[in-house]
């Protein structure tokens, strides 16, 4: 393990601060063909819900300038199938598997969390920010009050530490982050995708069946960096920053803005080795700058 990159997120030890983001990495298997997942600080599972979900109909992906819009709609096999088919493999990996959980209402969040109590998850990422499901999590993530309420209930029920994933589409992220902190969240991750719209003028039609969709990728980086900074200023719990990170320099900027770990999403599609390139780049930076640990440049503003 790299001395310079080893990172504690709350009590959880990450080999390095680099974590592929939920929904962009499947359950890891696909990327195993490209590299050894144990090189990663951690990885986030696709967003899971209590019941299996088929996801949204119609076009699900649309490219935009330096960005990607998606309307996957939380397609996933459900918590039971995850525990049965994916977890046995994931739990053997010597890296932090973060389990991302979505829900359509309080009941479904809590039942999902309860089921996860049966396995040894190191960290849950509570997704209250998916913009792509109508009756979905984002409703909770828009306001500090509702975000705090659901966080409190989930934290109470869960045997595992809970990190809450915030939306960039609602009220002030700093306020929402504070509400989650007060409700017992161990950490915060942000940003989920930014709500956007695409129109196919040739077809005189809206691109996505679901009307709006989520924007990610380099285009959103300045917004994500600002929100990460705002949240890091507002709370004491650790933050995983993400949104448009494509190089180690981007990752470093999020760390300088205060992020403890960073997640890499869309860039996995552009370059399947992106997380490794980022790890290598951060390592080289620490060596060049003579840092004992990357923490020395964390949150310097």
């Amino acid at each position, binding site marked *: 393990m790299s001395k310079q990159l080893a990172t504690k997120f709350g009590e959880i030890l990450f080999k390095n601060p680099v974590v592929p983001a939920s929904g*962009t990495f*499947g359950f890891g298997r*696909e990327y195993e063909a490209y590299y050894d997942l144990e090189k990663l600080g951690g990885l986030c599972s696709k967003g899971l819900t209590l019941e299996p979900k088929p996801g949204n109909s119609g076009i699900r*992906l649309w490219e935009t*300038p330096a960005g990607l819009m998606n309307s996957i709609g939380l*397609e996933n096999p459900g918590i039971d199938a995850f525990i049965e088919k994916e977890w046995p493999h994931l739990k053997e990996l010597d890296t932090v598997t973060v389990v991302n959980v979505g829900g359509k209402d309080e009941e479904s969040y809590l039942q999902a969390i309860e089921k996860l109590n049966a396995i040894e998850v190191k960290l849950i990422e509570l997704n209250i920010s998916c913009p792509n499901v109508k009756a979905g999590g984002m409703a909770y993530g828009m306001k500090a009050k509702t975000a705090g309420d659901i966080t409190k209930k989930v934290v109470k029920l869960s045997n595992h530490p809970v990190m809450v994933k915030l939306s960039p589409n609602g009220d002030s992220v700093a306020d929402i982050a504070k509400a989650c902190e007060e409700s017992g969240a161990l950490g915060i991750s942000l940003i989920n995708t930014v709500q956007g719209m695409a129109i196919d003028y040739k077809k005189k039609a809206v691109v996505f069946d679901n009307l709006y969709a989520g924007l990610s990728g380099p285009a959103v980086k300045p917004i994500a960096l600002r929100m990460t900074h705002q949240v890091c200023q507002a709370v004491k719990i650790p933050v995983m920053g993400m949104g448009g990170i494509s190089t180690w320099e981007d990752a470093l900027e999020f760390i300088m803005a205060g992020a403890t770990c960073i997640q890499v999403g869309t860039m*996995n*599609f*552009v370059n399947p080795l992106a997380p490794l390139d980022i790890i290598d780049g951060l390592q080289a930076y620490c060596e060049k700058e003579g840092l004992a640990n990357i923490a020395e440049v964390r949150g310097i503003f």
Partner: protein
Amino acid sequence: MAVVLSNEFVSRGICRMTVAFKGDVLPGQFFMLRAWDKDPLLSRPISVHDYEDGKLTFLYQVVGKGTEMLSRLTPQSDVTLQGPLGNGFPRITGDLCVVGGGIGIAPLYYLVKNYRKHNPDGKCRVYLGFRDVAYGVEDFEQAADEVNLDIGGIITDQLQVASGEVVVTCGPEVMMKSVAKVVPAENRVYVSLEAHMACGIGACLGCTCATKYGNRKVCQDGPVFLRDEVFYV
């Protein structure tokens, strides 16, 4: 990173590019290609048109920014390949009837060639339909027993499928649906689907298509499916 060996227009808006590549490549598989930094952001899925002696060929239509940039690559320049991806066509043993429409003929040539190699005695018939200009037809004529051409019409109007023939089709969705409709239920029909793709390897769930057995990923579980799996009936 692969080196471009040649890259030329073979018809209006249709390019053929050959790159150096070593590996096992099956007909119907595809690669994710890119030859740019981050604009456009995603790589482009392109099928294998031919593969032989370390030479991998793509046949592609210039429709937008990505394919336009590919078309400007000169010999010796670099292109980034990810693949081969997908399952491709199953090994076909009976007689083969191939129906291609427009640029949908791209993956079919390597299929036909490969079929010929493994089935010296099998019969291979080809239907090719184009809107206005035909291309690539000679290649098919060399590899297949029979080539039927249609320009400007509806290819399924002339399509006659013999009993026992396995049908493989690739082209515009309407064409594939109509092939799926006119071919008798007893014939096996394979369709090669397209979908917008981000990862190409099964991680993003962006290319899902609904099938009889639930959602399938075009990139990982396809791009080739049985007609009745994907409700093309």
